[in-house]
């Protein structure tokens, strides 16, 4: 148990207003080992961003546990600790945001943005020490430390994202939730930032939860991947296993829909009927049954259980054992 740095258990987030209830996150559970990168993928309305924010306590989860194993070896439920312990542990779990424009306060200098977490967590630190630390972190993420006195509007999207990364790193976290950190960036800048994140992980022993809708990026960076649909986790497996042999029909459809950057590969998409349902009014039984080509009668009535079908492989589908689903074949680098 203790070689997991983070164990998410039965996380729920429900929004209620007047008569409408939206179950943004429903019963999510998974475990992360130290130094791993877990990718979370899904389309709009699947709840992945909400999940990330609940884990980091940016918003308050309705129920569930986030068991965090701190450096001293003790395990705490990050969502249910007292104020004092929270202040102590909060610096270990940080977040990088999607939008490089709204994640930085435009009225603060970059130096102040990066040193703000230091001021909040190490109030006794001297100003000169803080500035030194900020310069150190800035150089590490590839920013010129002589530009720290500038304001965010002086920087491009990619550079702003680096500032966001510097801010997350400055207090030496152990876990970072990356909420679509490269989606708003140009392709070539994406590569820079992804390489940076990987380098930092190696150097600092970081653990990442990488949330994205871009399956190529997730395949590249993650050790394990979780697929979410309408608030529920439908499949969770090691990256290669998930991409080559998916067990859930939604995963299969998702993988087949991604256009491959190779014109010699013929697209063979699994057609999905209909559209993503309204999260405020989900279908009965399995949420995916209305669009699934393998739907049977049981799927319309009974919600499938999220179960461990093989070692470290989870899926929520009644027919997971019998279906032979299509994935990518890595041998000859051509899709089947």
């Amino acid at each position, binding site marked *: 148990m203790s070689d997991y740095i983070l164990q998410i258990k039965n996380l729920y987030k429900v929004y209620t207003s007047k008569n409408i209830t939206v179950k943004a996150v429903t019963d999510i559970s998974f475990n992360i080992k130290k130094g791993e990168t877990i990718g979370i993928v899904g*389309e*709009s309305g699947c709840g992945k961003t909400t999940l990330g924010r609940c884990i980091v306590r940016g918003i308050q989860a309705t129920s569930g546990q986030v068991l965090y194993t701190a450096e001293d070896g003790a395990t705490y439920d990050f969502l249910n600790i007292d104020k004092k312990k929270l202040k102590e542990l909060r610096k270990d779990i940080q977040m990088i945001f999607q939008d490089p424009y709204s994640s930085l306060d435009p009225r603060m200098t970059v130096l102040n943005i990066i040193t703000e977490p230091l001021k909040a967590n190490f109030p006794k630190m001297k100003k000169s020490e803080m500035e030194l630390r900020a310069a150190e972190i800035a150089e590490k993420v590839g920013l010129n430390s002589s530009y720290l006195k500038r304001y965010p509007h002086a920087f*491009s999207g*990619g*550079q702003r994202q680096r500032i966001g990364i510097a801010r997350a790193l400055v207090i030496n976290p152990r876990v970072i939730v990356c909420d679509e950190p490269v989606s708003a960036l*140009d*392709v*070539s*800048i*994406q*590569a*820079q930032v*992804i*390489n940076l994140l*990987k380098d930092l992980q190696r150097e600092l022993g970081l653990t990442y939860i990488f949330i994205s*809708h871009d*399956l*190529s*990026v997730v*395949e*590249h960076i993650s050790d394990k991947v979780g697929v979410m649909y309408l608030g529920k986790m439908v499949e969770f497996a090691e*990256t290669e296993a998930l*991409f080559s042999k998916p067990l859930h029909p939604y995963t299969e*459809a*998702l*993988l*087949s*829909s*991604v*256009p*491959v*950057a*190779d*014109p*010699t*590969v013929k*697209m063979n*998409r699994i*057609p*999905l009927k209909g*559209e*993503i349902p309204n999260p405020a009014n989900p279908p009965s039984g399995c949420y995916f049954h209305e669009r699934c080509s393998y739907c049977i009668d049981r799927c319309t009535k009974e919600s499938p259980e999220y179960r461990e079908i093989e070692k470290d492989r989870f899926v929520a589908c009644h027919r997971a054992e019998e279906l032979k689903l299509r*994935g*990518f*074949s*890595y041998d000859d*680098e051509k*899709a089947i």
Partner: protein
Amino acid sequence: MDGKDTIVQVNNLHINIKMDEGILTAVRGVSFHIDRGETLGLVGESGCGKSLTCKAILAINEQKCSTSGEILFNSDNGVVDILKLPPKGSEIRNIRGKQISMIFQEPMVCFSPLYTIGNQINECTRLHITKDKKKSREISIEMMKKVGIANAEKRYDQYPHEFSGGMLQRALIAMALVCNPKLLIADEPTTALDVTIQAQILELIKELQKELKMSVLFVTHDLGTVARMCDRVAVMYLGKIVETGPVEEIYLNPKHPYTIGLIGSVHKIGSKRKERLYSIDGTVPLALNLPAGCGFYDRCNCRIEGVCNVKEPKAVAVGPDHFVSCHAVGQKTCEEGHGIE
């Protein structure tokens, strides 16, 4: 015009924008052509000028953009130069929406929230096809069915806010294609959509293109979409086209350092993971007061000092229908330095 089958030929297009700080040379001499029935992909990142180029073809750029060059279009009335047409005249309005159509990235902002979807699609029909109310309504509904909008009669009278993102994009496509245009300009039409919806829309565009024998100018930065949709590709950087060629050639045999870098930056889904993605150093400079020579000089790994920073490279042929604007082509093998198979 190059050939009888060429629909659009852009020759040496320049677009300058006057700003407080100086003149922004957004498009610096772009030339390409699109043949009947083919899809040309225009690939580039932000700041390369692809959106301005597209809008120039329809002559819908803002006043502050000064455009020069030629945009020859094989219209119903013979070959016309779009840039020479009076911007508010009836000829260009006869072309817009009827012979050349455009669809955009954010379908939500392309529809007025005050009118029904059907009304807005019909606006196009009534303008270009027939003024008869009943007939035009029928034609519009027919088009809505064709793009895959279920319950088209009911949906015709609904408002944009009652449509989902994917549905709106279909409605936008209906509006663009109802008059059976010769050329469809698609400016990042699927970037804002979910993966599964994106796949549906791309398939739809391909089907309709085959059926209507239409040409498509597909603008995007997503290399996967380009591989899926396009017959030929033109890669743009900082207002210039740096490489054009058939799509297989571009992907399997890229020659320009920027193209090589771009392709290397993207992990191909379903392939073995690489340790690092190839990344191009630096960022796109602002197109203000650009120095002489190749625009990619600062970020290029194969640059030749004294040559690349002095004069602009001209397009040279490196394969069948494959052109590259680079001094270093054939001089050094840049591919080694990139570490790309």
